[in-house]
């Protein structure tokens, strides 16, 4: 149980790190709406997907692409966990 929690934390931390690197920010609210707040446009999303693929060693296939998965850090974390579980 503790192991699973720390794994989730680690995903969360790494997603946060990827986002902060990409958006050139020191910190980001985990609930922030990345689209509504103007952090991500189409090109930034493409860059984010590439960065996530690199960071987590996953491949985001076009047929799996649901833009709503990228709306906030929480959803990104959930999407990564889902992909890692497959």
């Amino acid at each position, binding site marked *: 149980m503790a192991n699973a929690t720390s794994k989730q934390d680690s995903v969360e931390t790494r997603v946060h790190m990827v986002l902060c690197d990409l958006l050139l920010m020191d910190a980001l609210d985990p609930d922030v*709406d990345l*689209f*509504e707040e*103007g952090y*991500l*446009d*189409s*090109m930034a*999303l*493409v860059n984010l*997907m590439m960065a996530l693929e690199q960071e987590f060693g996953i491949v985001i*296939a*076009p*047929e799996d*692409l649901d*833009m*709503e998965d990228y*709306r*906030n850090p929480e*959803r990104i974390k959930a999407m990564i966990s889902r992909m890692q579980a497959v």
Partner: protein
Amino acid sequence: MKITDTEKDNAVKRKFSIRAFTPDDIEAVVDMSRIHFPQCSLVSPGYLYETIDELYFKETLKIEGINSLVSVDENEVINGFLGVTPKPYLYQGEKVLGALCNHLMASDEARAALVPMRLLQEFLSGPQVFSFADGSVESTRLLWKRLGGEPSYSNSVYYKVPLRPMSFGTRPFQSHLPSSLRSSIKKISYGADFLFGVARLPLSYRIRPDLTLKPIETDGILTGLARVWKYFKLIPDISKKELSKLFELLDKDPRNGNLHKIGIWNKREVLIGWFIYYSSKGGVCEVMQAVSLPGKEAELFESITWHAFSEGGTELSGRALPSQIGTPFTTKSFSMPGRMWTLFHSKNDEICRALQSDGAFLTRIEGDLWLI
């Protein structure tokens, strides 16, 4: 009260939705085009309206599920557009439906809501067998690739031929100079180029004595296409009426110069090739289509450079067909792979292979880029 993710999704769906483009939207798309595409502000809104109407409503095939798309906000104000035209093709004699997209644009607000990506995703999920786009910029290539499409590397090699070397060489700097200096440099360049011309330099701009160049009409081009298409697996399925209409639209566009359709005949009066391009005196001559029988690429290149030179062009610019790579089109020019991109998307592997190699007949005319 905390807003749930579903509520947020619904809010965004209400804020931006994508639907088929209708004739009532043309005016708004004209206004957007004039903001987002500099070439659209070179013509009157009325001209643009008429062309968009012809291209997307009057002259296009109506296929269910293949439509130009607009994105609208909650007040039904258009904030994004993707032009789509169905394009019938033949793959090894079998009818296949292609769809072309161009003119992708979105307002700043819509861009932040991923409208460009959503428009492309909607388009690529249509019923067509393959999708393509011509002359796309790098950012569109990245979006396209992320959505499962590919760039056609062999159909993305551009060339530039300096027809008047001095004017060509000084052209990029002229816009940064004060007008008096610019005018002097222009005159000196013209003078030097005139002397090069008198001295018959550069030597490549000549016409072979055994070739005859003369205007070619739609029937002649269709005859030529029939001869050339047997070397391709994927070819446009276009009628004389459709081709004539396309030429009519290209011809009336005032932005690019004079449209020329020139055939090349050998001494036995066999049509060995043709070229369709816009001549522009003192400017860039844009090649829409330059096609020859296999092995006649050098004759084609010499003919088109000579013709464009004779029409006063400063440079010739075009996209090489895969069969023209390694011929003078790329060896005697400034060759620029990936200056812009021809993009495609298909779940059919054979069609993908044809589009990735030299198996598809895809010239800049098929891209419709010049019309809006």
